[in-house]
């Protein structure tokens, strides 16, 4: 239990979400007679949700720092239309287009970050305003038209890893990627065990580590198999690749670097952080700016996928991203959350969406179900904490390791609980 928990930053809600995700996948796999875990559907799922997941990465940092960003959908749409126009009207190549899109994201982010960090206007207000401004700007510069992008550019939204090397019947690069991931997982587990031992810290029992490794590696290999055996011309999608790179980079930044620590510190207790020498304004500025850059990237990926930019791109994305973050274990009051958790939260929503679609459930019911899932996921957690009971998820794993010593507030993710107890 502890060992498994450690994988996901020790947050029980995220931990539970992983299992909710697995349960959900199995449920839909059975309910749809095996149509869920087909190469085509899995690839589709990734392609169709990568931009929301990318937004979730930025959003979790914003939320950890104690803010919110409502403008991401509009910013994505605005960057998307601008890049489409740059490429069409100025004839610049696709890579320059992407670079300019990212730059535009930086500028927009600087604008919003300035108001939030240096003027001190709540991010809710600043980004609500941004939501209106950039939606309007998208429709103004695009004259509410659809603007197509060239096929080179479309690759970032709908491309796949190319075929290289000998014909194996599988996509070779995808296989390599999968094997590299497995190797990395095993290597890092061995390393963390070794350092824990050297420091005299608690080392998880060997069988726990092995079970964990087997489960994770099996999942990776199965996913690799699915991606590598799609219909000809498809393999691991480019947006998935971008997403994976971002997850690794941001996961690392948030948990292992000084700036990452500072984001948690500012969100956890801004005054204490400032009196420890953290430049909270700078942190807030960077977090808001980063969000807009990622929103720009998500917008470009979406434009690439849908082959054109339109006036209603990105409507409602902010809410999907925020939902993913909260399902993934972040706290409204800031200071709590992880990148990987938010990705899992986003995947829960995505799988739910996809599975219901496959079952032929209408958009109306799908929305109702998604809304309830968000509420229940968070309510479960809050309820268990306020009751001072063990979390349901903790009880589920009673025989899975050493969960008996789990204390009620170990799962704390809202500060109210702490202040009440203190």
């Amino acid at each position: 239990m502890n060992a498994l928990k450690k994988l996901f930053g020790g947050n029980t809600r995220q931990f539970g979400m992983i299992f909710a995700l697995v349960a959900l996948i199995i449920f839909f796999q059975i309910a749809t007679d095996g149509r869920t875990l087909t190469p085509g559907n899995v690839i589709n799922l990734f392609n169709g949700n990568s931009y929301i997941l990318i937004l979730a990465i930025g959003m979790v940092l914003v939320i950890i720092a104690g803010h919110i960003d409502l403008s991401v959908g509009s910013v994505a749409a605005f960057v998307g239309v601008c890049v489409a126009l740059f490429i069409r009207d100025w004839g610049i190549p696709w890579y320059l287009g992407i670079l300019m899109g990212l730059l535009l994201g930086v500028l927009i982010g600087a604008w919003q970050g300035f108001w939030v960090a240096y003027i001190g206007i709540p991010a809710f207000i600043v980004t609500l305003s941004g939501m209106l401004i950039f939606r309007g700007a998208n429709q103004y510069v695009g004259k509410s038209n659809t603007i197509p992008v060239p096929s080179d550019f479309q690759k970032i939204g709908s491309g796949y890893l190319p075929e290289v090397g000998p014909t194996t019947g599988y996509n070779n690069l995808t296989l390599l990627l999968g094997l590299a991931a497995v190797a990395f997982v095993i290597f890092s587990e061995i390393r963390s065990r070794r350092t824990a031992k050297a420091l005299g810290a608690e080392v998880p029992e060997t069988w726990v580590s092995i079970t964990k490794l087997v489960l994770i590696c099996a999942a990776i290999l199965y996913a690799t198999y699915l991606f590598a055996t799609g219909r000809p011309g498809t393999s691991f999608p480019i947006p998935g690749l971008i997403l994976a790179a971002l997850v690794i980079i941001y996961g690392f930044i948030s948990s292992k670097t000084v700036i990452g620590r500072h984001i948690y510190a500012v969100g956890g207790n801004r005054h204490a952080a400032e009196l420890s020498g953290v430049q909270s304004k700078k942190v807030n500025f960077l977090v808001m700016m980063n969000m807009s850059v990622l929103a720009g990237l998500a917008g470009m990926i979406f434009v690439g996928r849908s082959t054109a930019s339109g006036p209603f791109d990105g409507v409602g994305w902010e809410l999907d991203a925020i939902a993913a973050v909260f399902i993934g274990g972040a706290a409204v009051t800031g200071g709590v959350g992880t990148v990987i958790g938010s990705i899992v939260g986003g995947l829960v929503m995505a799988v739910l969406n996809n599975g219901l679609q496959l079952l032929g459930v209408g958009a109306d019911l799908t929305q109702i179900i998604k809304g309830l899932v968000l509420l229940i996921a968070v309510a479960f957690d809050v309820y268990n904490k306020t009751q001072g009971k063990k979390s349901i998820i903790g009880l589920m794993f009673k025989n899975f390791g050493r969960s008996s010593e789990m204390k009620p507030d170990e799962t704390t993710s809202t500060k109210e609980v702490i202040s009440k107890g203190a």
Partner: protein
Amino acid sequence: MTSLNTHSDPVILEMRSITKEFPGVKALSEVNLRVKAGEIHAICGENGAGKSTLMKVLSGVYPYGSYTGDIVYQSEVQQFKDIRASEHAGIVIIHQELALIPELSIMENIFLGNEPTKRGVIDWAEARTRSTELLARVGLREDPETPIKEIGVGKQQLVEIAKALNKSVKLLILDEPTAALNESDSQHLLDLMLGLKGRGITSIIISHKLNEIEQIADSITIIRDGKSIETLNVKADGVDEDRIIKGMVGRTLESRFPDHEPKIGEVFFEVKNWNVGHPQVQDRMVCKNSNFFVRRGEIVGFAGLMGAGRTELARSVFGRSYGRFLSGHVYMDGKEVELKSVRQAIDAGLGYVTEDRKTLGLNLLDDIKETTVSANLKKVSKRNVIDANKVFTVAEQYRKSLRTKAPSVEEGVAKLSGGNQQKVVLAKWMFTDPELLILDEPTRGIDVGAKYEIYGIIQQLANQGKGVIVISSELPELLGLSDRIYTIFEGAITGVLNKDEASQENLMKLMTSARKTA
């Protein structure tokens, strides 16, 4: 338990063998408490001894059924299911963190949840008359329509009591009522409690300030490690502070300060003509032309009443983290330094331990190891990447050397007691390796045993040749610890006394009067 069972004093409250368990912890075990009608009954114990838990059981925060044992109140066994039920019976608890709404007026706060109505509509005229009456009873001269945020903590405390009186309280429980008050407000509050006693209201007071307890309490129940140790009758048993401490810690502390031979070197830190304006109010000054210096190995005390400008002076020097900087110079080792931000101050070798641990000092979401390194991440990281192993080792090292009581350095700081939290904060600043450490109320809300250890840590720092500034409202603490004491009054330094010439009396005089000669 000598003279408690006299027939003349009826018992208003008796808690019999109360046991309360949390998962894995027995917070209270077979605690007994007998409170006589009309007395002031103090509950003493170290932090974490179970005082607050006991009061939460009594007031229904922990409802009937979640503990074992009986609460007999006014000769009946009570089964309070929530706070409302206990309030209905006349038991009102006033917590350390006041439960007032800053934006509402005094009057609205007094009647919150208990509004006088006429056919469903709030009768403000009635509320006004009654609140004026209540404010007079607690000796607070303020317009009932003043917003709570505009009056000080001392007055807010009085509003809480007025609110309790409005609920026709019979048993008033005060949890650390004077912790945040200055001497004169504290005295006023204590007088008020004696006044209420005269009107037949029984009070239970929880406090770490033993001198106050000695002053007003009729009996004292001592709780240690979740058990009731003894009940002392103040008048009959001739109780003094040392006697109470002995009960609380289970042994006599020979001295409340560790022995210390100061090794004082030359002046290395100096502040000259320091002027700072109030952060919001334009023309108000919080530091007026202040000058002070610190020698190596010296413990310097800052004495002053609450609000005199001690914290303001310290924080404005510490990277201008408070107020509007107007003018002044800081010299370190003879060279002038500019400390424009907290970062610069830390880099220059300053550290500041805040008086308000929970809101300014700690991120309660962090664990011990994260907190320990939080002011000096540079030292545990390479090219901005944090070395988790180093963090662990460093934190473990401080946990051992400061004897922080926690199962591991991965324990959340929110779960530690006040004393242990303070040790973690000290570790955090010691890890920045400061030349000058400023400690603002370093022992507030900390029990006697941990205080002694913290004094030891402070002296150890001084022995290493660092300078230490201690800001404290407790004069005995300053007198016991400091080598030299500055007094501050209304933002200006009014005097400086060496250890051998300082006494409570002359400090108090300097703390309450402007300097005659400029």
